[in-house]
């Protein structure tokens, strides 16, 4: 009855471990590929565009195009709702901050020797060592920068994780050891869901759902929710604030499980100035 998230650098057999954990625990497995296809089906966005949204690195998420911001919100929403079902192993770093504050999510980071990852890639893809090295390092940087820009987190910070496993040279027994460790850890009572933590997870999923619903109106707003009460913090040009709030409330109230909506509007100075109002 838990959720396991596993993040790992490319070619460190992280995915393989995640899949094995899911199989042994009889949990579902999800990775970004599966999530993206779900997003694409639900929101009708081509997968190629979604891939761009999780690969391109803006300076901050604020500098992303409106469309990309929306895509990220869609991905967050589908992910949080998907793992809400529990008994799931999720491999990837997307949506990481949303599961940060949930006590029944076991967050695992797998690290491995860089040289061995490079060898691994060279062997798997039949590439030269040099080329493999370049790709691996580039992908590491990309993942780190993307998470820093979009979620403002440092994925290499061990404080973010409950469990950091170094599988060293990525030998088969290293992988087996990691597998055992994860399964033993997740069985620990600490990571069992509580009424409290389930509620937190539900709240997070609800907040994401609200953001997705309103993404075409405002992709930068913040949403908090608790037991069906939704708090929206947004910015608007003063003149238009009333209409905006009304539109938001109507849209959100139609969502299942929403009992009450509150919208807090900050005066959007920037657009006011930009539009000369």
């Amino acid at each position, binding site marked *: 009855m838990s959720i396991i998230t596993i993040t790992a650098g490319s070619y460190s057999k992280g995915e393989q471990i995640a899949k094995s954990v899911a199989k042994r625990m009889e949990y579902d497995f999800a990775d970004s590929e599966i999530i993206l296809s779900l997003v694409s089906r639900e929101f009708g966005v081509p997968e190629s565009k979604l891939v761009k949204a999780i690969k391109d690195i803006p300076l901050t998420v604020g500098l992303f195009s409106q469309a990309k911001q929306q895509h990220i919100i869609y991905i967050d929403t589908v992910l949080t709702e998907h793992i809400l079902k529990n008994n799931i192993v999720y491999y990837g770093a997307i949506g990481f901050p949303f599961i940060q504050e949930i006590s029944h999510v076991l967050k695992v980071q797998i690290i491995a020797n860089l040289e061995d990852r490079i060898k691994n890639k060279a062997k798997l893809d039949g590439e030269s060592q040099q080329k493999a090295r370049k790709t691996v390092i580039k992908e590491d940087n990309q993942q780190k920068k993307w998470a820093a820009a979009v979620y403002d987190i440092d994925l290499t910070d061990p404080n973010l994780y409950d469990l950091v496993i170094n599988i060293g040279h990525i030998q088969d027994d290293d992988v087996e050891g990691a597998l055992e460790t994860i399964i033993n850890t997740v069985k620990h009572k600490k990571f069992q869901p509580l009424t409290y933590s389930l509620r937190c997870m539900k709240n997070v999923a609800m907040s994401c759902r609200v953001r997705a619903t309103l993404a075409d109106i405002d992709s930068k707003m913040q949403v908090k929710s608790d037991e069906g009460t939704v708090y929206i913090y947004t910015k608007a040009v*003063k003149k238009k604030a009333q209409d905006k709030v009304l539109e938001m409330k109507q849209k959100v109230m139609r969502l299942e499980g929403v009992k009450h909506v509150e919208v807090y509007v900050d*005066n959007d*100075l920037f657009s*006011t*100035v930009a539009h000369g*109002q």
Partner: protein
Amino acid sequence: MTNTLEFKSSFINNSEKKTALDTEGRDLLARPRFSLRLHLLLVFILFSFLSMAIIIGSVIAISSIDKKMHFVQTSERYLFEIAQARRWEKNYFLYDTNLEDAVQSAGNAKTFLSQNLKKFITVLSAEETAGMIEHLEKYRSLLQDLQDLTVLKKNGIENTEKKNKIETSLRKHGAEMVKVAAALVYKEQNSMNAMLHLIQRIPIYCFAVVLLLTIFLARFLVKRLIRPLNLLIESTQRIAKGDFSPVPPICKYRGEFTAVEVAINQMCRELKSREVAMVESHKLRAIGTLTAGVAHELNNPLNNIMLTAHAMLEDHNNLSEDGLLEMINDLINEADKSRSIIRNLLDFSRESESVSEPLDLGALVGETIKLTLNQAKVSGVKIETQIQPDLPRIRGDKQQLKQVFLNLILNALDAVEKEGNIKINVKKADSPKFLAVQVEDNGCGIPSHILPNIFDPFFTTKGPGKGTGLGLSVSHGIITMHRGQISIETEEGKYTRFTVTLPFRTVPAVLNKT
């Protein structure tokens, strides 16, 4: 519309700032200008004059020596002619020959003297010259007489008596003449020697003077250069400690450093205006910390309200009137409790002008502690409070002082481990007319190597995003403004004790005002 207004007002603020700059800058700029460049120029001119004077002086001295040499030569020539005349004269008296030659020599001397009369007059006095000329004239006329006698003698008339008489007088005048001329030569030679001696010494004197002057000027320039630099360094250190009062004029004159002073003052002013923002932003952080605690604390009355409301909802049909009344009262009480929790926070967070009012320090510290009790509860820290009763009142800004104590308590909370202890003491200080507030924790202490820095702005030991590093610097600023002091005793791994002393009022308010 409002926005344009805001813009206008900020524009006005800017222009006000500018005028403020002008008035303060004027104090610095009002001084007479005396730049370093001018200093250097003056020194350069002084040295040029000095060397020119030395050159002119030596030229004059050398030319006067030259003149004297000429004069000495002239005098010697004159002396020679006279001596010649006297030799011929002697011959005449001994062998009766050469009288013609003597007359000739005396005539030569006479022409020579009259030719060089001017020179003689410049060296000798007019009387002496006149005396000299007189002697020479006499001598010549005597020689003339003698010549006349010789002519008479040739004609057979022998006048021995007259000849003897002339001889005596001639010897007298001749001796006198030679004496004067020799004295003249001697005198001139002496004066020339003295002058040569002087000229030999002059380079040494000049060297000494120039050396002294150079030392003096170098010291002066260095003083003019180093002193402002030192003062500026001192100022920057002072500013680094958070004292943003403007730099006083460094010296009486305006110079290159004035621009730096003006710039530093402008910076100070900016910093000062930022400090207000800094105090506010720091307050916001404190509010952030507090809000976390308060949010949790609010959960309790909210829970009570929720449970009561649900109970009423479920049982409203079979509740007695008393039971219903009790629940309604509970609702009201719990709502009140929530309100007072929020009000505490709002009181603290309210932006307010700095107001000085009589304050009960004990009560103020007590209120501050209340704000932090939740935080303490969450981290399982015990706060012991000891407030001496009947303490005199202090004068100060309630919000600001609260912020200081809140800061110290929050820092203490950060420093202690779970189940740590914080002791807060309010009492009379050791120094008279001061009250002291001590906040002591048995936490990790402060390592001595960072102790000198703890009051610096932006100095923090907490991780990124956790502390602004402004807490103690802002506190220090506030306490200094209240004419108090903040000090610290600490032992690594054992304890940290912050002591804030504030002056209390000894004079009743009314008298104090007048």
